[in-house]
């Protein structure tokens, strides 16, 4: 037995969530045609009506869903000087429930992975609050492109990690609904129809590199001569990190003046020169190849050693958005081939 939902009902549900006061985010078309007349861009963004939601006709959005639990720019608290007296005003945490609909499994899985770093030892209340308020309805991928490599990193088009509900397409109009958590069950209660029909799980892209070979390479030390050779063309723009579902580095800065303002955190990227620069001028990672090596090591060795899961879901965004055709996949393919 399975539970089914058709597209019309799904759209009706989205409108119902919105009218009940939830915030709903999902893939939608933004910036109609750029200056070169190229096709519209699909991004995860807040929806105002179900009509804006796009569930097929593209591989995946250019951004990831991490911004709904870990915003690009977030106020941590305010400060105000009254003469010499200083007052801090706590940031107001959100209280509105939110739904991410049409998340790709590679995005949803990232949330499960991020839970670890935001909660080891010290707990990050900003992240946790948004995470608690968020229900993730994931759509299994029917299609993939040459950048997708989920199946090479232990994920796949039906990865359930981080999802509260998984929708698997049966045909263009209907989905099999798998409620994976209590949150998911609550959200879809009474909306689905029981059926004997079951969706066929999509296969996903072929395995593109050998993860074990990669592990051997990384265990071989930090000073391998291959790094500069493989990563020399990196521009250090950080597009890979900003569009990555799992990258989570941030900066903390003051916005305002000496009389008042706010302390905020903004996304940051380990690919920037200043990321590790000391005040003295010394920089532990002064070379771009060191910063690329850090990114790969962090994702495939450091994070797994510490938290038990790869810091990569194989979404391919780092390569799709890279101006010089790099990103994780080309680097890993080269490394895995070299061993």
């Amino acid at each position, binding site marked *: 037995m399975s539970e089914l939902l058709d597209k019309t009902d799904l759209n009706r549900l989205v409108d119902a969530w919105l009218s009940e006061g939830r915030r709903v985010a999902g893939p939608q078309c933004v910036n109609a045609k750029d200056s070169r007349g190229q096709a519209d861009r699909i991004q995860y963004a807040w929806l105002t009506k179900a009509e804006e939601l796009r569930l097929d006709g593209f591989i995946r959005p250019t951004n990831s869903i991490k911004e709904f639990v870990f915003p690009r720019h977030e106020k*941590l*608290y305010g*400060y105000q*000087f009254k003469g*010499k*007296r*200083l007052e*801090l005003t*706590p*940031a107001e*945490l959100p209280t509105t429930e939110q739904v991410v609909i049409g998340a790709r499994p590679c995005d949803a899985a990232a949330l499960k992975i991020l839970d670890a*770093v*935001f909660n*080891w*030892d*010290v*707990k*990050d*209340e*900003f992240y946790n609050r948004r995470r608690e308020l968020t229900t993730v309805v994931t759509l299994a991928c029917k299609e993939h492109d040459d950048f997708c490599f989920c199946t090479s990193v232990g994920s796949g088009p039906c990865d359930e990690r981080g999802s509260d509900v998984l929708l698997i397409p049966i045909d263009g109009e209907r989905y099999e609904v798998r409620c994976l958590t209590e949150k998911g069950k609550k959200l879809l209660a009474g909306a689905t129809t029981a059926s004997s029909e079951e969706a066929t799980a999509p296969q996903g892209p072929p395995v593109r590199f050998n993860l074990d070979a990669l592990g051997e390479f990384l265990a071989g*030390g*930090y*000073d391998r001569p291959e790094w500069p050779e493989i990563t020399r063309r990196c521009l250090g723009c950080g597009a890979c990190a900003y569009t990555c579902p799992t990258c*989570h*580095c*941030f*900066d*903390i*800065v*003051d916005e*305002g*003046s*000496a*009389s008042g*303002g706010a*302390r905020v*955190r903004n996304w*940051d990227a*380990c690919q920037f020169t200043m*990321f*590790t*620069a*000391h*005040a*003295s001028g*010394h920089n*532990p*990672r002064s070379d771009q190849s*060191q910063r690329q090596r*850090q990114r790969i*090591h*962090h994702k495939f*060795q*450091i994070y797994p*050693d*510490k938290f038990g899961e790869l810091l990569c879901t194989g979404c391919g965004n780092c390569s799709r958005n890279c101006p010089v055709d790099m990103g994780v996949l080309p680097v890993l393919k080269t490394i895995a081939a070299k061993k």
Partner: protein
Amino acid sequence: MSDNIYQPNLMEVLQIRQQTADVKSVRLRFRDEERAKAFSFRVGQFGIFSAFGAGESTFNICSSSDWTDFLEFCFRKTGRVTEALWGIEEGDTIGFRGPYGNGYPWEKWKGKNLIFIGGGIAMPPIRCAIWYALENREQFGDVTIVYGARTVGDMVFANELDRWAEFERVRVVTCVDPGGETPDFKGEIGFVPTVVERAQIPSEKSVALVVGPPIMIQFTLPVLAKMGLADGDIYTSLENRMKCGVGKCGHCQINQYYCCQEGPVFTYEQVKPLPEAL
């Protein structure tokens, strides 16, 4: 919000001492009495200090953990936040988050001879350790302090060097780079690694704490090894760029370590295989 890990405590500036042309030390006390009473830390830990409107910077808490009426930090005017801190006056308020990091392993150091080696502005993280050791004198063996700076005028806590030398079984060696001496300077002329080698410090039952610019540490470590210290008995504090202090933001990560959580104090044994550490 009660659990905001990024919101600092407010501290009153009690005293500011200008140490050199561009270094000041600041003495602080929590504005909140309850917080002041509840606060404790381990020598070697650090705090994140705020100048509101400019931002936050990370500094070692350079006072001893036995001094409970205040805490101190020391900074060099070198960037946006430290420029703003330079302008603060006694009675002003600054923010403090912490204490963070592991601190020095005093349990392991008990009964040992202590060798403290510091360079330039890196003296504060050693100064707190020196005071802690000297005020708990019976727990430790001989104490040797080697402090080097570019010039005589660049020595921070210079007024405390003589006070340390007055304690029993304490030897203080100071040095400045060639050309940095003044006519009345009584210390040695030379770079820290050379001076350490010349000083013929006994290494039996010893641990060494070396803090300074990476280049100084790199050249001092082989000297200590030659003296017979094991890699596990040589300690350093990695003063990396940090933002959150709680193992999330990624800035201080050096290979597998989050310096803010698993450091900043590491043994040479730990950092030796890490090319980015020094």
